[in-house]
């Protein structure tokens, strides 16, 4: 550990033996660029809301998976590390699922009746 911390000025780094062949980074970059362009195309097509959201989310996740698998080398790491990396997705999905009852049982400003009640509460004088 002390040896590693010592500065070695002028010593050029030596090549290290790679366990796995290097991915084709340029190909991954081209795929990412194409997917970004596709996102813009989908956006400017002005599709109905549900299919547009589904397509955009799918494209975004495809890009995220490409970055994680090839740029962050998850594809060549041990599977346990990939499982650890996937944990946040599961937890956030669980959080979104648990937020749903809050949204459905307590409408904030989503119904006209709620808006009317709120407006009346603000305008009527307090007794």
């Amino acid at each position: 550990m002390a040896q590693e911390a010592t500065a070695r000025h002028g010593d050029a780094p030596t090549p290290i033996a790679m366990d796995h062949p290097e991915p084709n980074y340029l190909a991954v970059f081209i795929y990412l660029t194409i997917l970004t362009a596709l996102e813009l195309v989908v956006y400017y097509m002005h599709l109905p809301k549900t299919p547009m959201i589904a397509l955009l989310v799918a494209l975004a996740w495809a890009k995220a998976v490409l970055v994680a698998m090839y740029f962050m080398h998850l594809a060549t790491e041990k599977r346990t590390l990939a499982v650890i990396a996937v944990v946040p997705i599961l937890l956030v999905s669980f959080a979104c699922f648990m937020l749903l009852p809050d949204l459905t049982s307590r409408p904030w400003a989503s119904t006209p009746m709620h808006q009317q009640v709120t407006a009346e509460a603000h305008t009527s004088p307090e007794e």
Partner: protein
Amino acid sequence: MSEAAAIESHAPAGMDRTEVQLTPGNTGKLGMWIFLVGDAMTFGAAIAAYGALRIGNVNWPRPADILGIDTTAFMTFVLICSSLTMVKALSGIQHGNVAQLKKYLALTVLGGLIFLGMQAYEWTMLIGYEGLSIKTSLFSATFFALTGFHGMHVFGGVCYNGTILANAIRGYWPGANAKIVEIAGLYWHFVDLVWILIFTFVYLI
């Protein structure tokens, strides 16, 4: 190489020989992954909260009416380019090519600075000309919080990569240099990954 041989070659002194390392030869990489997992949960919770607030509010403005989609798409492209240059820099140092490391790491830092500059321009337009601030509305509060938090991460990444670049230029090689660049690369790609999701959920949807 067998599992036992791998443990033999990479295990630090005093390590239990029955323990299997998740990242043999680079324990710092595991530390960075654990940090990124926690950070991903923070960003995930922030984006989930943004979604929950947006779904529950019919008065949410259409993002394209206020935000510049094309400019932000270019910012996304810049970050993707910087991810490519980061892996090229790592590839260079793994093959002992110092010149390639310096060139591509400099381009990565430049990409980060361009992204931050464009985000500063976007914020200036929104605050100065649109009159938005963090207390104007739920939309502006969530927008500035999310993009600001991400921008802080980009700034940190620029400083991180800049430090490694400065050391490389000075010829300062503290021990395991390829491992250091690999760990920094993980952070930078994570920042890019999060922006891909923010661009989709905040700007496009």
